[in-house]
């Protein structure tokens, strides 16, 4: 019927005996339900159930990782079930190299967040919300149906709202409300976008069918159609069902941007739709200037909430921009790429500067997220293999390092009942191991080579240098600022002579160490040997770039031209890339 549908079936991976992705979403959801059923008084049991459910999800994710076929570009473990069939809404799930590691990261961070911090009160709803949150996050990453994606995207909001509002710090109600309203604001645009996308897609298919039917009839010129033609005509005359299937809509390329005009009124649907999605994701990432919910939400959230917020929730935005921006509307994405890249780079510099001036350690870490996420957006919209993979890797890296930083700040806050940098001093003297762990995580965040952060940042920068040269040049300066604000904070908190208030600061316990150990191990491992991750991402990313190239003006930059200017390169996409050559022009002119 629609050629694109075939593309979604190329997931040649042998379907497992059970639907592992659905199980991934359901296990934490069922866990949440079980937590609800456990009596309120049994605090230990509540925690046990929560840990078990999260651990089981983690195990499933690890199994997924092991079974994932390397070198495969398409979706694997795909399942497509009817869900709300009247509206063509399906339970369509699948992972490819792009979503795989986000799923694994989510499933890994939740048990760590649950183990790493205990709620001050009311454990029952706390654990139930956390597990529901996990189900929602995983649902977002595996959804291949727009509607399902939206539902999951919104489900995430509710538990997070209650977690911040219920278990947060001083200004929690304000922060929770701000978080909720901000995200809802974006979601409204996305909902409109999703519905419009589905209907416009159907209209376009109907138009195409009608045209084809006319063509067949015209060719027949009144003659009797063959049975095959007759069947085809009947097929074309049938009602086109509404569909929300991401793959189908993206691959069939029915909603294209054919506008030549820069006049916004003339913009074709794809650009408006892209904008609708992009606003929702920009809030989630968050991009400058819609980022101000983040410092409040991160700072006021309980430790586990901050870990998940930074580690997973922000990635809903960057993942969305990639899957529902670049993939669904490649041409529009290419058109808006300079804007998004600019906002990303502003975020890198601006986030770092504001972070440097924070007095609250947790708020500082929160602002560092603005800077880090800027790198991801830069890499994504560089639309190069290195940029996209670097961005994806940076999603993981940021989840690990910022997740660990929030855990550490949470531990400081639990011990000292303050997060004011000015109130902390000389902690390295009394807690050297704690300080060492903090140092490693901080260095990962700074992007020290040998640790994970560098690989991601480097790939983002080198990838964006190819297509967005001057943005990359500015963004690279963010590397200086990151060192500045983190080392300064470290100095104020850990260096210096320890004073009376901080003398009693307790050393890292074994339990805390055990929670942090997997994060540290991954920080080192991904820095030294990122290949297992990269080789799983590569085919999917390459396929995405081809998809963008095939459906927009974008032209992949050619590497290794020794600075010579190719004669016929004058389109928008290649213009940036040709900068290297443009310099030569000047020289040749001499």
């Amino acid at each position, binding site marked *: 019927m629609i050629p694109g549908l075939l593309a979604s079936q190329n997931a040649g991976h042998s379907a497992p005996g059970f639907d592992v992705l659905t199980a991934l979403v359901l296990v934490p959801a069922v866990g949440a339900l079980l937590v609800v059923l456990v009596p309120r008084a049994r605090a230990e049991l509540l925690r046990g159930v929560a840990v078990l459910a999260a651990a089981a999800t983690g195990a499933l994710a690890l199994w997924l990782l092991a079974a994932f076929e390397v070198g495969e570009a398409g979706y694997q473990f795909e399942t497509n079930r009817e869900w709300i069939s009247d509206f063509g809404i399906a339970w369509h799930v699948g992972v490819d190299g792009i979503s795989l590691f986000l799923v694994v990261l989510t499933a890994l961070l939740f048990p760590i967040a649950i183990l790493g911090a205990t709620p001050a009160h009311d454990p029952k709803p706390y654990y139930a919300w956390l597990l529901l949150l996990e189900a929602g996050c995983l649902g977002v990453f595996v959804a291949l149906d727009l509607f399902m994606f939206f539902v999951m995207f919104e489900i995430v909001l509710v538990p997070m709202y209650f977690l911040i509002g219920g278990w947060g710090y001083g200004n929690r109600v304000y922060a929770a409300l701000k978080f909720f309203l*901000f995200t809802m604001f974006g979601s409204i645009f996305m909902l409109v976008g999703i519905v419009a996308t589905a209907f416009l897609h159907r209209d376009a298919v109907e138009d195409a069918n009608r045209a084809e039917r006319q063509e067949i009839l015209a060719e027949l010129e009144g003659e009797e159609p063959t049975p095959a033609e007759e069947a085809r005509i009947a097929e074309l005359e049938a009602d086109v069902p509404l569909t929300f299937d991401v793959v189908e809509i993206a691959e069939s390329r029915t909603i294209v941007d054919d506008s030549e005009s820069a006049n916004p009124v003339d913009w074709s649907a794809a650009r408006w739709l892209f904008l609708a999605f992009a606003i929702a994701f920009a809030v989630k990432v968050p991009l*400058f*200037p819609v980022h*101000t*919910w983040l410092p409040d939400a991160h700072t006021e959230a309980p430790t586990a909430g901050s870990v998940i917020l930074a580690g997973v929730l922000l990635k809903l935005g960057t993942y969305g921009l990639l899957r529902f921006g670049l993939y669904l509307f490649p041409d529009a994405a290419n058109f808006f790429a300079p804007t998004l890249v600019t906002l990303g780079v502003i975020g890198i510099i*601006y986030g770092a*500067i*504001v972070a*440097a*001036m*924070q007095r609250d350690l947790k708020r500082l870490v929160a602002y560092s997220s603005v800077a880090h996420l800027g790198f991801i957006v830069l890499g994504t919209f560089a639309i*190069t*293999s*290195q940029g996209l*993979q670097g961005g994806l890797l940076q999603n993981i890296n940021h989840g690990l390092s910022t997740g660990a930083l929030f855990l550490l700040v949470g531990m400081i806050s639990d011990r000292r009942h303050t997060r004011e940098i000015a109130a902390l001093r*000389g902690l390295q003297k009394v807690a050297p191991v704690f300080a060492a762990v903090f140092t490693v995580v901080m*260095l990962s965040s700074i992007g*020290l*080579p*040998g640790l994970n952060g*560098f690989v991601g940042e*480097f*790939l983002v*920068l*080198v*990838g964006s*240098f*190819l297509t967005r040269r001057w943005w*990359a*040049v500015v963004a*690279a*300066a963010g*590397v*200086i600022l990151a*060192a*500045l604000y983190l*080392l300064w904070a470290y*100095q104020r908190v850990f*260096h*210096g*002579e*320890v004073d009376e208030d901080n003398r009693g600061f307790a050393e890292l316990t074994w339990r805390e160490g055990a929670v942090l150990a997997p994060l540290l191990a991954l920080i080192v491992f991904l820095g*030294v*040997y*990122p*290949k297992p991750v*990269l*080789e799983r991402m*590569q085919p999917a990313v*390459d396929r995405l770039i081809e998809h963008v190239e095939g459906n927009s003006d974008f032209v992949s930059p050619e*590497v*290794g*031209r*020794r600075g*010579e200017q190719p004669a016929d390169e004058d389109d928008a996409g290649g213009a940036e890339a040709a900068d*290297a050559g443009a*310099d*030569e022009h*000047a*020289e040749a002119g001499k």
Partner: protein
Amino acid sequence: MTDVVWLIPALPLAGFLVLLVAGRRLGEPGAGWLATAACGGSFLATLVVYAGLLGEEEHSRSSVTTLFEWMPVGDLQVDVGFLADPLSIAMALFITGVGTLIHLYSIGYMHGDADFPKFFVYLNLFVFSMLLLVLGSNLLVTFVGWEGVGLCSYLLISFWFTDEANASAGKKAFVTNRVGDWGFLLAIFLAFATLGTVDYGELAAGAGELAGVTATAIALLLFLGATGKSAQIPLYIWLPDAMAGPTPVSALIHAATMVTGGVFLMTRVNPILAAGYDWAPDVIAWVGVVTAFVAATIAVAQNDIKKVLAYSTISQLGYMFLAVGVGAYVAAVFHMITHAFFKALLFLGSGSVIHGMGGEQDMRRMGGLRKVMPVTAATFIVGWLAIAGVPPFSGFFSKDEILLYAWGSGGAQGRALWAIGLVTALLTAYYMSRQVFMVFFGEPRWDEPVAASAGAAAADGGEAGDGTAGEAGHAEVRPHESPWQMTVPLVVLAVLSAVGEVINLPFTDDLHFLERWLHPVVGANEAHIDVATGTKWALAVGAAVLALVGILVAAAVYLRRRVRAVEPSVLAHAWYYDEAITRFAGGPGTRFFEAVAWFDAHVVDGAVNGVAALVRTGGRRLRAVQSGFVRSYALGISAGVVVLLGYFIARLYV
């Protein structure tokens, strides 16, 4: 035998890992000995690889050992691999050799420190990183080492972190270096974008095809990185502060090895530099010679024993960049090696003095120490003669080689570079003699209060006095000679400083061992100068005479006290450059950051809260409508009816 090259960095890495896990259990001095053994083993491994390379034909003295694929992404292929060639092995030899001596020395120097094992954890990590830097087979592995040594530098400068000044110095070093790293990173991007590779072999092969502007850009961006790591103008400001670290660290990292990383890098990428515009090397030469001169003038007026050596290091590194700039790569490496010997010696000697003086670093409170610290004094004097350029010590030959190439590079520019270099040599002889006379000769001033000698005491260098193994007690100072772990490395280094020139003596071509050895790497782009033998002798003799003049003047001032010392405060304050930057960062810089933070809190977030407030106020107003009184609703309905009626009636008639 070159395939064991991986063993060279692997041994210090192993040492680091073992010490990380078991350092505390090993304690003192076990941890120190283990670290020394790891570094020594690495030296032996380097010797094996060296022998292996020697056995090869000259043109095949280069082998790459790839360990694993690091970042294979699309067109980008980055492997973790080691390049064993004459340049990298020459570097590795003196890094591990001098490194082992300094490890040994540290066992004595760090005696009694509470964090003794941790010191050696960092030291081994440093040696590992430094070896990555020089042995890496591509720009990115070098960059890993580059940042790794920067990290170790940070950790070791702020080793005694309870003192805020030390902590600040460490941070300053790291952040300043990051400014340079920005250039390094951009150079990597540009190399990849234009040549499609970051591998040294492929870069060298492809450099010839590079457009001039691209090659120039890559070379100068790398040079920006080098000015950070090798403390050149404009980024040198971190190095004097870095003296806050324990003295063995200053010797190893901030004199002998890490700071030469930039010179190494420029030597490594010589094909790219050669492919650039002609003025690109001139930039490097001028930055080098101006740095050499400026730093030497500052060294003249410092009173902190380590600060003098710090500025001296900056100055000597300037010479090396001058050499690179005039295409004298061999001379650059030659001076790098002899400098590693005599500057490590001088730092370790000063460490021995500080150790013996119970932590005192102010030279005005020293004097006459040659009587109580004979070994330290004797070896320090060898180092002094070497750096001052007195024949036949090593520094004379390597420095003379650089000046000769500067002279030979021709034109007015060549003469100017040479002249500034020569004046710098005079200053070097002067300030080093000043140091030796103040510390080892004259009357003991161990118990004199500093204030008596100069009013500028407090101002000089800010954090001058603090930073070593404990504050100097002004009470009773009983200088003493240091233990054998400290004096043995001094003696070895003194011998090397005295005879180090044998690796590249100028007299006959047969004696140019280093030049022949490095030929496969730099030969193609090495400058060829045409200077008559007579001129060469004249230049050499002139330089030697000038060195003696410097020494004699210093003797007149500081030994005989015939002439009043000229130590203007502008020099004591290092031309106010660092202070201006500090003031800028603390003033307008901080204010700008604060303004951005204010903008975020009040404008961006203010807009958000403003909208929220607007909605809330609007809602509150509207709420009044929902009063619940039927009569007000009825009123509203009637008003509405009237308005609607009016509207329809109006439409009928219009």
